[in-house]
């Protein structure tokens, strides 16, 4: 479906203004302009979309309505009679989640002598890591330093990030790139081995490493292959965790899983548990479309919360500025920030720039929302959605013919499936729900306030403050997956477990009733409710 006649007029303006725009740089926002823009247009600031949590460690804190309902929900195991004396799997380290953080954690735990079980809801590797396109940051060039990376992360996050976590992130980054390379990841390089690096939103140095625009997929499939190479790591697919298990002393001691196909419950006894369940985009906060994979339902937050782990920064989500807005079939799909990194501008219906293309994601998104909602300068699609143009054809003009095909093959293919040639035509985009900035509060070794419980990756909170920069989530999952895996294996050597119990599920229900909560949707959610039931109201 090429662009319909109703969008052609605006398309012509984009082409007409292109020669002139090639020589124009739209000014960056000043710090005060940026603050004002965020307050007025960023979805995090919409008060009606948030509320206070009424029970548990974060009682009184604000979070989106959809997440609050799940955090407050009754356990799926409440009232279920389970014989916890019959243990199905006995392991040192249980890793919940099979994405980039989970696989990294499993590999490091195995290297530190642990027997490891990965339990994952879908297939190993079905995760947001697989979908990350643009890149992974690391300050490894001579003109760059971990200190500059630190500065970018703190400034991008609003100066509220946990400094110890940021330090670990930037310090480990170069080593992580080398580790991945030794596992066989094919980073983009010059013939002499120099990394081909570009800018991302909010970076002061070109430190974005990439593997074409399949960076996350390349990292994920390599980690997955490495996990499969290690017999001491067992993998259970289609077996989500529903609840953590404690022992009578109150330390974490495993989890109850459910086989999604047979619906059988499985009891796992583990000396330590790493939660690496990723984010929650499939909760569709404020009705936003999402870039996230099917399983991103925030299960790990719910399970950790029920055993007393504290969450941080759960009132802030990241809306990626450029989700596809046309065609209808791929609305919400990520259009990588690398498109702007390579020089494409963002344009309104008149073909005019209205924002510097590489503001941090929160500001870039807010500017697009303002252009459409307040100024009425968006482009309307036949389904009634509105968006702005992302002028990808500029890239070949700036960097030479063939650049788009070489650097953005995934994007070219995605749009070609719908007869849009992004080397010649721009893409229509609108902000899309992309990332959970916060999560379970962790320390630099991935440990939490709950004994034997570790968390890594998007399920954790504090590294990115209130806004994550491009290329720091792939980095985060590997840095903190490795750290949590190592720490979980070391801790497992000291742990002595007592009798397994789900008494905390009963306690949780009492706490809910005391807070005046009666019904509620059982959580974790596990799978989004997308099936239409024609006979249900």
């Amino acid at each position: 479906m090429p662009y319909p006649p109703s969008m052609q007029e605006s398309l012509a303006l984009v082409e007409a203004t292109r020669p002139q725009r090639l020589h124009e740089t739209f000014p960056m926002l000043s710090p005060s302009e940026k603050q004002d823009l965020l307050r007025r247009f960023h979805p995090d600031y919409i008060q009606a979309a948030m509320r206070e949590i009424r029970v548990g460690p974060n009682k009184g804190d604000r979070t989106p309505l959809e997440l609050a309902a799940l955090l407050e929900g009754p356990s799926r195991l409440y009232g279920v009679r389970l014989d916890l004396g019959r243990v199905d799997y006995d392991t040192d380290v249980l890793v919940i989640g099979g994405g980039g953080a989970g696989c990294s954690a499993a590999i490091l735990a195995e290297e530190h002598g642990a027997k490891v079980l990965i339990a994952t809801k879908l297939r190993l590797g079905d995760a947001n890591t697989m979908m990350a396109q643009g890149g992974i940051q690391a300050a490894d060039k001579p003109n760059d330093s971990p200190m500059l990376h630190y500065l970018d992360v703190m400034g991008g996050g609003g100066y509220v990030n946990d400094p110890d976590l940021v330090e670990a992130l930037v310090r480990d980054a170069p080593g992580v790139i080398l580790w991945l390379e030794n596992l066989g990841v094919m980073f983009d390089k010059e013939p002499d081995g120099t990394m081909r690096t570009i800018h991302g939103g909010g970076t002061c140095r070109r430190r974005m490493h990439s593997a074409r625009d399949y960076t996350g997929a390349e990292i994920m499939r390599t980690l997955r292959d490495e996990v499969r190479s290690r017999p001491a790591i067992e993998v259970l697919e289609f077996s989500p965790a529903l609840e953590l298990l404690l022992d009578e002393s109150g330390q974490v001691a495993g989890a109850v899983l459910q086989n999604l196909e047979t619906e059988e419950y499985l009891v796992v006894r583990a000396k330590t548990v790493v939660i690496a369940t990723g984010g929650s985009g499939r909760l569709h906060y404020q009705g936003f479309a999402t870039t996230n994979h099917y399983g991103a339902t925030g299960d790990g937050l719910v399970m950790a919360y029920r055993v007393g782990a504290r969450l941080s920064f759960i009132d802030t989500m990241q809306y990626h500025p450029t989700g596809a807005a046309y065609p209808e079939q791929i609305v919400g799909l990520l259009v990588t920030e690398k498109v702007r990194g390579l020089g494409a501008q963002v344009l309104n219906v008149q073909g005019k720039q209205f924002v510097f293309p590489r503001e941090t994601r929160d500001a870039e998104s807010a500017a697009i929302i303002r252009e459409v909602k307040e100024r009425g300068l968006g482009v309307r699609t036949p389904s009634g959605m509105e968006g702005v143009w992302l002028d990808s054809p500029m890239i070949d003009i700036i960097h030479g013919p063939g650049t788009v095909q070489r650097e953005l093959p995934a994007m070219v293919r995605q749009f070609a499936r719908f007869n849009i040639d992004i080397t010649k035509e721009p893409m229509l985009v609108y902000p899309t729900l992309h990332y959970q900035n916060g999560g379970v509060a962790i320390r630099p070794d991935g440990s939490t306030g709950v004994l034997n419980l570790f968390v890594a990756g998007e399920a954790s909170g504090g590294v990115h403050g209130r806004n994550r920069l491009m290329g720091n989530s792939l980095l985060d999952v590997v840095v903190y997956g490795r750290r949590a895996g190592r720490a979980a294996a070391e801790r497992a050597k000291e742990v002595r477990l007592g009798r397994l119990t789900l008494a905390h599920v009963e306690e949780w229900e009492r706490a809910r009733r005391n807070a005046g909560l009666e019904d509620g949707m059982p959580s974790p959610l596990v799978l989004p409710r997308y099936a239409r039931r024609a006979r249900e109201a």
Partner: protein
Amino acid sequence: MDKPELIPIHIMGKRYLVPPSLTIQKAMEYAGYTLVRGCGCRGGFCGACATVYRLGSDYKLRIGLACQTVVEPEMYLAQIPSFPARRPQYRLEELKPTLGQLLALYPELMRCLSCGTCTKACPQNLDVRDYMAAAMRGDIAAVADKSFDCIMCGLCTARCPAEEVQYNIAILCRRLYGRYLAPRSRHLIERVAEVEAGQYDEALAAMKRMPVEELRKQYNARDIEPE
């Protein structure tokens, strides 16, 4: 707005009426399925939703990703959520980037008939036959390059008359290339050594102690490297 006409499709032999604008994946959900297998990233990257279909009375078998393919009238479809493809045990650090290595792990490699069924089956439009030919020549760099966009959905393997496991051979070649054949990055190795020697410890500790106002000042005064 007028309600669009619904069209008939056949999911694993059952007929359903669905709106014509939907992808196969959304059409299955419209039909009432809660997807467990056969659904992953929903964005064309993970290979979970490999689908085989036929149209009306046409004999031709077509392939696609359920999350990326729009339904058509009288589509008969089934998903290939899992395929018993072989993957030998190996440790990358013990391997060599040679043809002999590929043959030791995948002795069936030379059974390839170059029939091209795999190429026809690839939803990424990769020339699988071509990279298999490169593998048979032991040109690991070429396999790595030509197979790079593989999403490992397994359709090539499911359709192969020679029982090859193309996508597993391809990832082995990419990993061999990344570890052994790609040019090493001198600046990366040097930076890692500096970090490990503690060269940045003091400066990072100082930044952690810095009051927010000072951090803000430094952030706003950063010089930005040109494009």
